[in-house]
């Protein structure tokens, strides 16, 4: 079977980069020959060990659940507030200073305050992550709302489209590129913060596992968890973000 040319070059580039990085890692590990720098082989063996005999699957599922919940809350609330700020200049004026403060409060402070005020509970962990992410979603969606083409909204008004139709068929599609940018950056930020939240105040999840591995100075274990989690994030990218990319590109030149 002959593969199309663009697929061959795509595979060559993607697989080539992964193979080259793996080879570099393995040879560096051989050269350095230190327990602080485990080889790729020992990391893969560690993945296998934690996967089969440890709590890796359970911890990853727990972390993913937290990531998903915080992500949905942050995107929904951030999206709604961002649209309101972009559309209503008075609301924007009233909330702009608060937004700047929220953007600049360190993630660690929010996490600690949430744990102190609400206790070491699941809701506090998820709230802490969502509060950290909401301001960046607000900023992106607000900027997107400001770029919405008023000429197209005028078409909706002239042809008396219902508010729902105007929102979903005319307004929202113009925000898709901003929503996907917020979602992509959101996911990467959220899973990093979730690990800190777990490290500080939960007794399960990838963050908790990494803390335990750190206490045993199990570097291969730490890298194994990172490796497994990155793979899952890549899978999410392929399964969820790529199809959304296609939706965003709908009707663009050359489609």
């Amino acid at each position: 079977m002959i593969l199309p040319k663009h697929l061959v070059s795509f595979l060559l580039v993607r697989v080539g980069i992964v193979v080259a990085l793996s080879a570099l890692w393995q040879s560096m590990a051989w050269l350095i020959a230190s327990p602080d720098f485990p080889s790729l082989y020992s990391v893969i063996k560690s993945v296998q060990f934690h996967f089969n005999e440890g709590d890796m699957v359970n911890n990853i599922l727990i972390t993913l659940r937290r990531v998903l919940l915080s992500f949905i809350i942050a995107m929904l609330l951030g999206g709604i507030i961002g649209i309101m700020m972009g559309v209503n200049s008075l609301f924007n004026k009233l909330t702009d200073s608060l937004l700047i403060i929220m953007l600049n409060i360190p993630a660690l402070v929010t996490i600690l305050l949430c744990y102190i005020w609400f206790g070491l509970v699941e809701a506090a962990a998820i709230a802490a992550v969502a509060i950290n992410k909401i301001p960046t979603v607000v900023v992106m969606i607000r900027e997107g709302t400001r770029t919405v083409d008023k000429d197209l909204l005028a078409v909706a008004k002239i042809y008396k489209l219902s508010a729902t139709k105007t929102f979903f068929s005319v307004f929202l599609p113009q925000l898709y590129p901003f929503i996907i940018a917020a979602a992509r950056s959101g996911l990467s930020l959220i899973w990093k913060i979730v690990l800190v939240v777990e490290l500080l105040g939960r007794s399960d999840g990838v963050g908790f596992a990494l803390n335990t591995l750190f206490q045993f100075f199990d570097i291969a274990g730490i890298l194994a968890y990172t490796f497994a989690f990155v793979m899952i994030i890549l899978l999410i990218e392929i399964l969820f973000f790529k199809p959304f990319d296609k939706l965003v590109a709908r009707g663009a030149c050359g489609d």
Partner: protein
Amino acid sequence: MIELNVAINNKYYPNSQQAVLAQLDFTVKPGEFVAIIGPSGCGKSTLLNMISGLEDCSGQHISYNERASQKYGANDSGVNNQSHQLGYIFQQPRLMPWLTVKENIELVLSPSQYHKIDGLLAQVGLDNKGGYFPSQLSGGMQRRVSIARAFAINPQLLLLDEPFNSLDAPTAARLRQLLLDLCIQRGTTVVFVTHDLSEAIYLADRIIFMSHSPSTIVHQAIVDLPKPRKESGVAELKWQAQLLVKYPHLLAGRID
């Protein structure tokens, strides 16, 4: 069929001391095709936006009467009366780039009216282009989609704001003919803004000439040439020449 009554007295832009429209009083009779000509910046588009309700009309009088003289218009935005009676074809086609040609027309219709779309696309010569996105069409084809979208709702009043600008001459001529055919077929009342006198003579029953801003009506001319007319035909050119000999500065918004 619908009649349009416009009485505008000193329309200001928000935060401006200078009126853009000073005094405009005119009526467009049911089924009449009225062209409005005026110099750049005289407020032609503002006038159309006021008629359509896109621009604030508080304190002004814009109303519609149906032929049976049933009145629904009001003094405010003017279009919040019967459903789907107003079509607007803008300078740019203003199609949703993420929707196909067919979806763009579906957008302004209810699902029970979707069956009309194929016939309408055939009428504007786009019968095999329903699945295309606007970016895959030429400028002329995009205008045709915007014409089809406007006629999809079977408008009683159609507003057009220099819709054939920036098109090559043969395409613009074809679209003018298409517009005329559809308007005659459906008895649509039309207000057509243009800066092209020969286009106005070809299309309109009456031409209203506007002055510089703050605008007033400086002249109204009934185009008493038989239909169908010709683009740059002898009679049409003669009519134009006679008008401009009588009022040499008419297109600049003056009759001195």
